[in-house]
Structures are given as C-alpha cells and as structure tokens.
C-alpha cells in the first residue's frame, strides 16, 4: 500500500512561538529608565517589581488554570492568600526565637515549617471550598461569581473572628533582612529570594505542564475539556487536583507577600486580587505563560508608577490592561477554545 502524498506535505509548518509579548517586558523596563533618571533607583525598582511580579504569579497561576480547565472563576481565591499568611503566623510567631536567631538554618527551618503548614491548610481549604461552594454551581457563571464572592467575604470576616481585628506584624527572619549593595544600587535580600522562589515555582510548573502526562492533560483540558473526557479521562479529578494545588500556591503566595509587607491584614487577599485579576486578563484567561508575563508587567508598572506618579499607581495598571487589550483583545496568550 503506497501512501498518497498530500499536497500540503511540502510546506513545513513553521514552529510558532509568539515572541512579541516577551519583548514587551524589556521594552517596558528600558522605557522606564530615562523617566526615572537614576540607574541605581531603576535597578532597585526593577528588582522590586520582579519580586512582586513573582509573588503575584504564584498567587494567580492556580486561578487562571482553574478557569481554563472548568470555566470556573473563583472570586474567593484571595481568601486563600489571606488564610495562608495568617496560618503561617501559627508557626512563625511561636518560633520567633528561631526566626530572629543569627542562623540561616534555624531561620529556614522555621520558615519551611510555616510554608508547609500554610500550603497544607490552604490546599485542604481549597478542597473543601470546591466541594461545598463551587461544585453546586458548575456551569452557572452568575451564581458562581456571587457565591465565591460571598465565600470570600465570610472567609475574610472569619480571619477577624479568629485573629482579632488588628493587623499582625510579621518580621522577616534575621538572615533575610537587609540589602546587598551593588554599585550604587541597594537590593533588598528578600526581594532576591522572592524572585528565586517565583522562578522555581514557574520552572516546576512549566516542567509539570510540559513533561508529565498529567500536565499534558491539564493543558489539553484547558483547550478542550470535552475531548479529554472523550479520550477516557475524568476531567473533574484533574480539576480538583488543580484547584487544590492552586489554593496551596495562593497560600504560599500569601506567606511570601505577608513577609514582604511585614504586616498582615485580613483584607490583604482581596486587595491583591485586584492585581491578580488584571494579571490573568492581561495574560489571557487559562494561560500560565501569559500569567507569568502579565504578573511581571503589572508589578513593574506598579513599581515604576509608584515612584513616578504615586497617586495613580493602581490606575496605571488599568491603563496597562486597556493598552494590552487594545493590542490583543483576548490577552497576551489567548487560549484556543473549541
């Protein structure tokens, strides 16, 4: 049997990697340099922006995947951020001695314990949230938005009930405090650490999504969940897994964010959610890569604008979103849908 040549065989499809959104990032950073004027300030702001961006990415990634996979938008995602941060205090405050000890090892031990507990609790909470709050309203967007918003309010208020109405200070561990002087620029150590953690999470997520079968299924499910089911896989299980992982990541993001601000408030989750929403819209709903770039863009703009025109810092992010949606109405990396 001789195979019949198809006419299109001749032309090899080009490998399509969409570079343009990647270039926006350095373009933005370079454009800010002359406006800011001083190179050391620029370096400081850029590192701060990258650190903040990584933390936002960690919080936003789960949300965007959950949306892509099941068309579920969890307006209560911010609650996991807050709960993560507050749960960490259960370890960090009693272990203040270890945190403030002059030993990297003791600092890290206390911190790892806190992160593990925070991620465990938020993961579990995510599981419960999915069962109780989200499952009954699958496919009903309107109710979904209302219910998850309500869930967020309740969670935020419960933080007040359990931890009281006051802000909780959360000092950085001793070895993470201070800055590294780099020429004229001072770079806070913690920001570098946040960048490193963010990169690790991103690379890990990238590897899981690209190199494992579960990852492939998630990516396939984001594009066409029905087809994944028709191939014989239970998408609900995938979804619950992603939901739990996303909640745990939001918890991790909350711990990092709390340490960055060195102060916890019950509203921290809902405040950051505004940026998170902008990020996942900019990135393209459902796209992890877009979420990563979007988070860095939003954070850089927030830091540059915060320095240049502090009064309109948040409004500048709305402008960024408008600009990007004018360029690409579905976000930087639109997810192909059915």
């Amino acid at each position, binding site marked *: 049997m001789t195979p*019949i040549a*198809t006419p*299109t065989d001749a032309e090899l499809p080009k490998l*399509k990697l969409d570079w343009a959104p990647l270039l926006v990032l350095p373009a933005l950073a370079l454009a800010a340099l002359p406006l800011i004027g001083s190179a050391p300030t620029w370096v400081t702001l850029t590192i701060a922006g990258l650190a903040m961006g990584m933390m936002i990415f960690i919080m936003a990634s789960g949300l965007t995947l959950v949306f892509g996979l099941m068309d579920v938008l969890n307006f209560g995602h911010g609650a996991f951020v807050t709960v993560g941060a507050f749960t960490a205090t259960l370890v960090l405050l009693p272990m203040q001695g270890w945190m403030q000890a002059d030993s990297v090892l003791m600092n890290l031990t206390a911190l790892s314990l806190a992160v593990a507990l925070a991620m465990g609790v938020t993961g579990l909470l995510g599981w419960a949230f999915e069962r109780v709050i989200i499952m009954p309203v699958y496919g009903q967007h309107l109710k979904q938005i209302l219910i998850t918003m309500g869930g967020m309010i309740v969670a935020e208020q419960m933080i007040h009930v359990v931890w009281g109405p006051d802000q909780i200070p959360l000092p950085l561990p001793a070895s993470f405090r201070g800055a590294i002087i780099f020429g004229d620029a001072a770079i806070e150590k913690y920001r570098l650490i946040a960048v490193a953690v963010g990169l690790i999470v991103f690379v890990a997520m990238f590897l899981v999504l690209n190199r494992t079968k579960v990852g*492939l299924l998630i*990516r396939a499910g984001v594009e*066409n969940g029905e*087809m994944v089911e028709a191939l014989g896989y239970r998408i609900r299980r995938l979804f619950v897994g992603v939901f739990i992982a996303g909640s745990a990541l939001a918890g991790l993001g909350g711990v990092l964010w709390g340490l960055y601000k060195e102060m916890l408030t019950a509203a921290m989750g809902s405040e950051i959610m505004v940026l998170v929403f902008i990020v996942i819209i900019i990135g393209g709903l459902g796209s992890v890569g877009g979420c990563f770039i979007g988070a860095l863009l939003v954070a850089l703009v927030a830091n540059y604008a915060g320095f240049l025109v502090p009064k309109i810092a948040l409004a500048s992010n709305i402008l960024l979103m408008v600009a990007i949606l004018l360029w690409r109405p579905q976000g930087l990396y639109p997810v192909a849908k*059915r």
Partner: protein
Amino acid sequence: MSEALLTLTGVHTHIGQYHILQGVDLTVRRGELTVLLGRNGAGKTTTLRTIMGLWKASRGGLVFDGQDITRASTPDIATAGIAYVPENMGIFSDLTVRENLLLAARAGEPDAQRLEWIFGFFPALKKFWNQAAGTLSGGQKQMLAIARAIVEPRKLLLVDEPTKGLAPAIIQSLITAFRELKGMETTILLVEQNFGFVRSLGDSVAVMDDGRIVHKGRMAELAEDRDLQQSLLGLSLDAHQ
C-alpha cells in the same frame, strides 16, 4: 449479518429547551462500517454526541457491547471502547502531534508497530511528529484526529464528517485509511454528507432527517438505486461527486 455492537432504541435528546433527537433507532453491527447520512441540521452530530455521553438522552436507551451506557459518563463510555472523532476534530493545538497521540494511548506510550502502520497511510504525522498540532493544515489535523482514535484498538469508532472542507487528494488518503481499518474488521459509525466518499466504503447505511432515522438498509442497495438516492438525499448529492 453479524450481531449488533451498538443499539439505540427510541433515543430522544434535548439541548436546553430544544428537542433535537426525536426517537432515534439505530443499530451498528460488529465489523461493519455504518454510514449515517442526512442534510445539515438533521441531528447526526447530536446522535454521535449522545452516544459519547456528551449530551444525555432524555428518553430511550443505548446499549454498547451488552452494556447499558444511557446514563454512563463520557470517560466511562470511552473506556468501554468507543473512540470519537468530532466534527471540529478536537485537536489539542497547543500540544505536539506526539503529545496528542500520547494522551490518546491510555496504556502509556503508543505501540511502535501500530504507529508505523498509521504512518503508512498518514505519513505527514511522522514528518511533523514534534510540531504543535495547531500548525498543521486542515487535512493533517483530520489525520491526527483519526490517528488519535485508532492509536490503540477500540471496539467502535465514531467519525463525524471527516471530509468536510478537505481537498480531493486528502480525501483519497482518508479513503485509504478507512479501507485499512475495514481490513482489520474495525467497527465504524461514519457520519457524512459526501455520498461519493462513502458509497464505496459503507456496508450499511442510515439516513436521518429532523431528528429521526428515515431510512435503513445496505449501502450496496442504495448505491445502485438512483431513485432512492434522489428521494432520500435530494439532488445535492450529485454536486458532491
């Protein structure tokens, strides 16, 4: 005639408030290629989706290989042995050709020998093995969609209008593929509007209109009987040939 592999009895399907399938009776026999014909909007796609459990039958029953699948979930129906090539092909465009086939192989890696067999009639898939599926041409995507359904042997293959919008040369390679599959005694339910494409392939044939089966018989009879073709399928069929 061989025994029935899939039987639909009096199947009704509602999409939202619309009553689409209005009592479909259909039998697919083991080892045969059954062709489902009918004009646009007759309910062919809805029938396949109901078999796959993507719509739920509101009345009637579906039995596959002795098992009642009327209320079964889509993944259960798939694991029971039905593979589905939807009308829009359902390719994962972000994934490579290899990754698309990897997901279709539930056992793990696709079997190398079977892959070689598939490459025999769909050589483009081998050539673009590591390309993102979204970069393939329409015909190549259709090949991938079919390859995905046959990368492991399944009891029944549902294929929805594979020739839609394809150039004649590509349709030729699809015919080759279906001949190969028939040679391996694969049971196939093939939805088509292109009568020219299926007249030589089909064993039995059913014609749908307005959510019902309006004719059942052997393809050989229908292929011979121009009057019957005329009355069932209208003049438009000639335009396809």
